[in-house]
Structures are given as structure tokens and as C-alpha cells.
């Protein structure tokens, strides 16, 4: 009995399986582990059955296949509770592709599997467009194209085809696909540059699969240390003009008002009108490339001047909150000031909110009241508290001892060892107990300058917490108690101060200068990639047209550029192909023969379409006996050259002689009355 495995040959099946496996691998880290494993098992099953048809594991029948497919859909549903969404969709696509592969028995099935592989590629690209993964994506395109070539070349099952199946091997297929893709690259680049980008999305897939990273809208004094152990990049900043000095690089994030004795929260009690600000000093203009975090926070230097363009809100606390979670790299331009002032009064609402007394902590309450009473003003009180922190034997450490129920008391008068969160928290608590409005601000401090790309890298390890107090005549004023305890923190990253903060690999990287340089180059390349390729949009297109010298370009110029480039490319491709396939020249022998026939036609002897040269010679003999000598010889010569022995590769000299003889043949029209005769 004919098994299913024999219906199609192994090679194209194997290639479609390779394409599918590669597509699965590109998505393997985004789906539950059992999905690629199940896909692999099904694919191997099919390949094994085709490879060893005689002793094959029997391929499953329709019933088993349906049950398997149903189980797999249920599995996806159980894990994701939906089939909509990028991860769930990808998992489903992988499983359905594997089921398709299992029942593959025709060229059409194999092509569908390759199509699924290309969709898997699309899913992976929609998820991530890193520079690092781009070669993998291109490789997948190559594999899929090769698979298409191999599938297309497969012999038709059940037909004896002469000469098929030897010449075009895997190497040729790989080469052909590579060559074709290379030829297509200019077009792809052209289209990439000029194809008009539409603004806005037609629809969106829910994405619930991303891990949230970065700062959140709550903080316990120790929670920042969780972030600082991560060497991941939070965002990159490219300044247009000079960068602020390191000590001024405070990147503002969530502002926290509510303290329950343990955790600071960003409780929303507003909206309050924002106090009018005077922006002093130099504005800093810069571009931020925000890495995905799944959170809605955007970050800006110190005090931002106005809301940046983009789907983002600017709150009264000068926080930036995105309309949607940041799931893709986001870019925005912002203008910030490091010197601002507000001479207005703080309105009652914010004052009440930011002077809520801290529960418990009797020692610090007494201490704060006492200190405030001795200080003449709020400003002097702030200095006194900072002085207490500076001289009180406090230690900046990554591993603070745990705190009890009265955490502020414990910290200030007990352990005295803490991280930025402890200092900010305790400082704000002391302020509030003395009725000075204050709140905690979280964000990042500093950043690593990348000399290769000329931009600042801000990592999760730069996460920081500081305080803001309201001072009459100055408005909200930043106070960083950590900087008092550890002044070096202002100028150096946490990694230099507390080497234990990050993982061993990151420490290793920082220990070796050439590795650091190498990584800076790599990061510069990544930043360039993100800025210029991933974030290439309509504005960038217009910019390119301007650089090409077009005044005030618009979308129609893009269209013209596209059309022109397309025509040029088509011409180039046609030329490429024309060059490699020489114009088929007509056979010289045939040409000479048709010239001979033309000559005879002119004198009224026509060759019937079904007459060969010899039959034609008979006609000539009958019609014009006078010509029969020369013409008949030529015709039989032609017959000899064309059909005689050695006609496969006729002797060039003989062909030339025949051509010459045809050219020299003189045949005149028969004249009934020839006066000379």
C-alpha cells in the first residue's frame, strides 16, 4: 500500500520544515515552552515518515489530527485566555503550522507551510526590531525563498521526468535565492526610503505579554535597589547643543505624595492648577529614545518646558504619562530647564496633600519639631536636616538592614544605613512633620556618556529617588539627601560607587576598558539603528527629500521619487537579465535557407509549408528546369547539413560556404522571349 510519505519527496518537505522551524525559533521566547516543543515533535514526525516510509511511524489520520489541533487550541486558550493578541496569535500560528506540516502531502501544502513561516517572521518583527536580530530576520527570508525554490523544483509525483532532479541542488537553490534577494535589495531600500508612511494605526493587537520594567508608581525605601541591579537601558538621550553638567542630570519620573509608613504612592488627588513657573537659564533641547517598559512613564530632564509632541500627558507635577504603555521604542523631543522659579503661593490642595503627617514615628516627629523651631525659616530647616544627615554617621549602601514598623525612626536613629530611597523617604518625612510641603520624586540620575555616538545612555541602574520641598519665593526646590551623604553619586554612576549593585557580567564589562569601548560602539550602532531605521517616519522622509535639494517637499514628491526610482530599478533588472541571457540568434543555416527560399519566391516558385528541401527541389526541377542544377545542389546541401549525419553540430565552414553560395546564386525571372537566345 502506498503510504502518505511517498506522495511527496523528502527534500522540499525538509526545506519547508526548516523554514517553519526557523520561524518558530524566532518566536520561541515569546510563547509558552510547550508550543515550540510540540511543533518540533510534529515536524520531526512528518520528516521521519517521509525519510523512512517503509518502517515509518504511521502518519496520523484525519481524526487524530483534528483531535490534536483541538487540544492545541485549548492549550493556547488555557494559557492566554484569548486567541487575540500577538503572543497568543503567534502560539496559535506555530501550532497550526505544525499541524499543516504534519498533513503535508503536496506542493501546495509545502508552500502554505512556507507562507506560515513568513507570517511567523512578521510576528517576530512586529515584536522586536533590534539590530542584533535583523540578520536573523534576513536569514529567515533567505531560508523561505530557498524553500520556495526547492519546492518549485520538486519532481511531480508519479511522472517519469527525464533529466529532472539532479542539476538544481540545495546549493544552487541557496545561491539563486541569495542572488534574487540581492537584486531585490535596491528596490527594498528605495521603497523603504520613499514609500509614504501613514500616520496612525488601523487596528491594534492587545499585547499582554511584556514584562514591566523600570520605575513604577510606588516606592518603598528599598525597592529602588531591585532596579539598580539591572544593566538594561532605560532610555538614550541625544542633546542638540551642550549637555548639562553631570550633577544636573536628574531625569524626572513619577512623583509620590502618599506615605503609609512603609510605601510611597502616587495617589491621584488632583487635578490641581499648576503653579506658574519662571523658566530661567539655558534651555536644553534633546531627543529621547525610550526603550519599551510596558509602563506609561516617559522621562524628561529636570523641569520640562512644555508637553512634547506625541501621545503623552504632562501632569501638574511635571510628570510625563504616555497615553498607552510604552511597548515599542518611543522617540520624542523635549525642551527642559534646570533652573526654574515660582514666586506664587502654594495653593491649599497641594499644600494639604504634601504636608500630611507621617503616622507613628514619634522620635522623628519630636526631632523635626525641635529642629524647625530652632531654624528660622523653611530654608534654614532644610539645611539643618541636611547637616544632620551629613554629620550623623549615615552610610550609603546597597544592602541596608531591614526596618521596623516605625521605619523613619528606625532609619534615622537606628540603622543609619540606606539607599537613595531611604534618604529621600526620611527627608520628606522630616519635612512634613515640620509642616514643610515636600514629596518624593523618583527617576534617574546621571547616565553614561557614549563618546562614539555622542549621546547619553541612562540605565535602570541609574534609578534614583530624591525630594522636593516648597520654599516660599522659590517654589518646588529639588533636594537630594543622598548627595549629601554620598556626594560622589552626583558625578558617578552607582556602578562605580557600589560595585555589588549589578550582575557579574556588567561588572566584568566595566572592568575592561576595551570591552567597554566595544560595547559603546555596539550601543552607538543600536542607537543609530533605532533612531534612523526603526523610527524612520514621514518627517524623516521629508528630511531626506530636503537634503536631496527639494524645496518644501510633500507626499507627492515622495510619490515621484518612488516612481522614478522604481522605473530605474526595473530598467536595471531588465538590463541585468538581458545581459545574462544573450539575445537568441537565429540559426545561420536557417537564415541562409530562408534567404534561398525568398530568392526563389521572387521568381515565382513558392515552397509549400509542408514541403521539405528535397520535395521543394522537385518542384523547382519541374517549374524551372534551367535552374535545377544550381538550386537543387543547394537544397540538397541544406538537407545534408540540416538532417544528415553530424547535423547536430554542423561544421561552421560548411555553413559559411552554404551561405556564400546562396548569396551568389543568381536567379532571374523566367522570360518567355529571350532576345539574346
Amino acid at each position, binding site marked *: 500500500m502506498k503510504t502518505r510519505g511517498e506522495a511527496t519527496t523528502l527534500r522540499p518537505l525538509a526545506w519547508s520544515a526548516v523554514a517553519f522551524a526557523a520561524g518558530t525559533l524566532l518566536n520561541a521566547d515569546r510563547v509558552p515552552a510547550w508550543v515550540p516543543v510540540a511543533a518540533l515533535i510534529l515536524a520531526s514526525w512528518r520528516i521521519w515518515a517521509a525519510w523512512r516510509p517503509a518502517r515509518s511511524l504511521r502518519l496520523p489520520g484525519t481524526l487524530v489530527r483534528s483531535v490534536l489541533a483541538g487540544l492545541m487550541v485549548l492549550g493556547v486558550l488555557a494559557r492566554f485566555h484569548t486567541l487575540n493578541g500577538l503572543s497568543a496569535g503567534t502560539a496559535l500560528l506555530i501550532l497550526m503550522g505544525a499541524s499543516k506540516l504534519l498533513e503535508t502531502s503536496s*506542493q501546495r501544502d509545502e*508552500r502554505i507551510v512556507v*507562507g506560515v513561516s*513568513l*507570517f511567523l517572521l*512578521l510576528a517576530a*518583527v512586529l515584536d522586536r*526590531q533590534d539590530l542584533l536580530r535583523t540578520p536573523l*530576520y*534576513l536569514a529567515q*527570508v533567505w531560508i523561505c*525563498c530557498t524553500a*520556495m*525554490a526547492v*519546492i*518549485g*523544483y520538486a519532481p*511531480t509525483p508519479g*511522472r517519469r521526468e527525464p*533529466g*529532472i532532479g*539532479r*542539476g*538544481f541542488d540545495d546549493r544552487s*537553490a541557496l545561491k*539563486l535565492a541569495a542572488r*534574487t*534577494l540581492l*537584486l*531585490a*535589495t*535596491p*528596490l*527594498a*531600500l*528605495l*521603497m*523603504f526610503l520613499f*514609500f509614504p*508612511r501613514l500616520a496612525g*494605526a*488601523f*487596528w*491594534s493587537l492587545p499585547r499582554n505579554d511584556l514584562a514591566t520594567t523600570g520605575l513604577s508608581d510606588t516606592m518603598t525605601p528599598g525597592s529602588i535597589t531591585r532596579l539598580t541591579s539591572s544593566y538594561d537601558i532605560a532610555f538614550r538621550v541625544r542633546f542638540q547643543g551642550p549637555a548639562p553638567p553631570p550633577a544636573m542630570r536628574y531625569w524626572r519620573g513619577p512623583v509620590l505624595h502618599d506615605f503609609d509608613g512603609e510605601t510611597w504612592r502616587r495617589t491621584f488627588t488632583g487635578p490641581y492648577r499648576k503653579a506658574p513657573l519662571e523658566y530661567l537659564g539655558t534651555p536644553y533641547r534633546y531627543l529621547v529614545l525610550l526603550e519599551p517598559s510596558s509602563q506609561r512613564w516617559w522621562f524628561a530632564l529636570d523641569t520640562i518646558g512644555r508637553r512634547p509632541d506625541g501621545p503623552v500627558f504632562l501632569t501638574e507635577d511635571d510628570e510625563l504619562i504616555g497615553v498607552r504603555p510604552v511597548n515599542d521604542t518611543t522617540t520624542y523631543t523635549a525642551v527642559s530647564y534646570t533652573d526654574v522659579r515660582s514666586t506664587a503661593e502654594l495653593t491649599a490642595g497641594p499644600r494639604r496633600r504634601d504636608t500630611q503627617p507621617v503616622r507613628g514615628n514619634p522620635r522623628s516627629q519630636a526631632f523635626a519639631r525641635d529642629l524647625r523651631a530652632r531654624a528660622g525659616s523653611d530654608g534654614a530647616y532644610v539645611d539643618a536636616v541636611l547637616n544632620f544627615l551629613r554629620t550623623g554617621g549615615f552610610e550609603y549602601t546597597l544592602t541596608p538592614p531591614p526596618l521596623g514598623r516605625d521605619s523613619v525612626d528606625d532609619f534615622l536613629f537606628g540603622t543609619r544605613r540606606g539607599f537613595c530611597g531611604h534618604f529621600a523617604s526620611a527627608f520628606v518625612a522630616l519635612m512634613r512633620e515640620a509642616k514643610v510641603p515636600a514629596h518624593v520624586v523618583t527617576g534617574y540620575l546621571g547616565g553614561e556618556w557614549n563618546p562614539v555616538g555622542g549621546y547619553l545612555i541612562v540605565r535602570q541602574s541609574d534609578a534614583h529617588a530624591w525630594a522636593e520641598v516648597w520654599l516660599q519665593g522659590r517654589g518646588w526646590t529639588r533636594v537630594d539627601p543622598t548627595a549629601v551623604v554620598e556626594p560622589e553619586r552626583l558625578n558617578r554612576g552607582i556602578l562605580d560607587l557600589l560595585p555589588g549593585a549589578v550582575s557579574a557580567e556588567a561588572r566584568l564589562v566595566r572592568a575592561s576598558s576595551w570591552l567597554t569601548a566595544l560595547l559603546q560602539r555596539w550601543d552607538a550602532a543600536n542607537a543609530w539603528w533605532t533612531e534612523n*531605521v526603526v*523610527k*524612520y*517616519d514621514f518627517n524623516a522622509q521629508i528630511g531626506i527629500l530636503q537634503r536631496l535639494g527639494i524645496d518644501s517637499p510633500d507626499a507627492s514628491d515622495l510619490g515621484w521619487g518612488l516612481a522614478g526610482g522604481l522605473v530605474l*530599478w526595473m530598467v536595471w*533588472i531588465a538590463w541585468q*537579465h538581458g545581459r*545574462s541571457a*544573450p*539575445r*537568441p*540568434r537565429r540559426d545561420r543555416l*536557417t537564415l541562409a535557407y*530562408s534567404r534561398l527560399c525568398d530568392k526563389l519566391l521572387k521568381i515565382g516558385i513558392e515552397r509549400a*509549408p509542408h514541403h521539405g528541401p528535397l520535395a521543394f527541389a522537385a518542384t523547382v526541377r519541374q517549374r524551372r528546369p534551367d535552374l535545377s542544377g544550381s538550386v537543387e545542389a543547394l537544397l540538397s546541401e541544406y538537407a545534408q547539413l540540416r538532417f544528415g549525419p553530424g547535423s*547536430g553540430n554542423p561544421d561552421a565552414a560548411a555553413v559559411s560556404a552554404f551561405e556564400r553560395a546562396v548569396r551568389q546564386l543568381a536567379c532571374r525571372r523566367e522570360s518567355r522571349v529571350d532576345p539574346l537566345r
Partner: protein
Amino acid sequence: MVSAAHIRVYWQLRMASWVRRRQGLDVLPITLHRRRIYILPTRAGLGFLLLVFLMLVAGLNYANSLALFLTFLLGGFGLISMHQCHRNLLGTGLRAASAGPTFASRAGTLRLELESSASTPRYRIGAAIETETPLLTDLPAKGRQSIDLSVAAPVRGVVHIERLKLTTTHPFGLFRSWSWVHLPLRMIVYPRPSGTLPMPADDAQDAGRLARGGAGADEWLGLRPFRDGDSPRQVDWKAYAREAPLLVKEYSASASELRLFRFDALPRWGIERRLEQLARWIVDAEAQGQTYGIEIPGTRIEPDRGPEHRHRCLSALALHEHRERTQ
């Protein structure tokens, strides 16, 4: 009622006559050039187009640069594959085509000699009669390959093969390019040898021998391999049972045994049945090395023997009041 199939056939016919008028009749050898190669996407090509379109929409929707780039790359790939498919046929050609005669209800063979004048190999070049499924072959650079197409021949007469198709979907199978070759090819279809009447003797000389029958009196010549059209009665079945190949017993006819097979001497059956009986006798007589001739209304072929003669006689039967058939 007009169905989709009707429309399809109508357009195929319209196209066929347009192509025929455009190209004229061909003379072998033919090398395919640009102006006679047609190209359209295959079903897989349309699927690929849909896939690229979906990728484009997804890329635009998410403003995903890399997805757009890969979309454009695949789109360009598709366009180039069109050029490649077109080029795969360019420079290939048909050097010779011949359709040998066959017996009715037995498939005939059309032998084509394909050649390529291109400097690179040509893969999966298919040849077909009209719109049948093409038979595929590879052509080495500046090389040749003969292929045999089978031609259906259900009834005796002449099968006209109006046009041949050379086609390819290589590489990638996204496009199909093809070219039509119009050659006035005829394939003679002999009547099917059939009938059980004994072979008549030369009734012009001795009518009485008709009753006696033929084969027994002949002189044993030897064995030769089985050929199409041989009578099963002449096969050496005993040898075959000993696992020898199919062999046929040959007899020589003595010079005196001139036989004339006459159409009119047969019982008043239908024309076809009588022709089949005549074909049976011709095949048998030739196999036995006898000298035979035929006489059918309008034609008389004097007794002779040999393959040429056999072909002449069988062709005369094939062409007797036949209807032209177009393959």
C-alpha cells in the same frame, strides 16, 4: 446556462486564435524569444502577493520599519522572480518534433527534441500538447533533451496537433511563463487490429485457399522480439512461461503466397469493424513475412512487404473516409 468553465474555454479559444494570428506558423528549429513568451502569476504567486500585501498593511499599521523593509524585500523578490521565470524560457527552443503512427485506443508518442541556446542551464521546462499537464525536463547549458509526450488516440484517423506549449514555473513557482509553438503535426492512427477471420489467400489466383487458412502452411523462420501490433496468436507463450521475454514466432511466406486483403470481400459489417479486420491481417501478414496487398474502396495497394509497405497499407486504412480530429 453559461458557467465559469464556459467563459474560461471561450477566453482560451479567443487567446489561442489571437496568438496564432500574431505568431503565424512556425518552422523548426525554433528558439523562443521575448515576443512570444507570455507570463502570468500562478496560484502560489497570487497567494504570495496576498501575503506581501498583508505584511505591508501590518507594517504600515504598526509603523514598523523592519516589517516594511522585509515586505519591500519580498515584493522585489517576487518581481525579480517574474523576470527569472521569463528568462528561464528565453533561449530554449524546439529542435525537432515527430509523431509516429499508432494504433487506435493506444496512446501515441510525440517525440520532442528540446534544446537550449542559453549559457546557463534551464530547469523544469515543460512541454505539452495544447493545455494538457506539461511533462518537465531540465536542459543543460547549450544542451538538448528529448522527451516523449503521450498523445491520446481513441479512434483511427489522423490526429492533428495544432500547437504545442513550452512552459515553466521555475524558479520559486510564483509565475508561469509559456510560449505557443504552432506546427502542423499529424499523427496517423491506424485502426485497432481486431477480428478473428482467418487470413485470406490470394483470391485472385486461388479463391479456394481462403477457406484453408494461412499460418499453418508457412515455413518456420525463427523468433523475434514482440512489437506493437503483433498478434497474440503468434507469441511464443511457452517460452514466455519459461520467463523468456515476449517472443513472436516468425514464418516466411513462400513467394507463391501473395495475398490481397479486400474490403469488399469481407462480410457486410460496419466500416470500422472491417477496417479492424484488415489491420489485423496486415499486422499478422507482415509479422509472418508474407507478401500482401490491400484493396479498399478508392485505393489499391499492390502486394509487397516490409515496414514501409505495412505503414502504407495501415495508413490507407486509417485515412479511409476518416474524420479529422484535432488534439
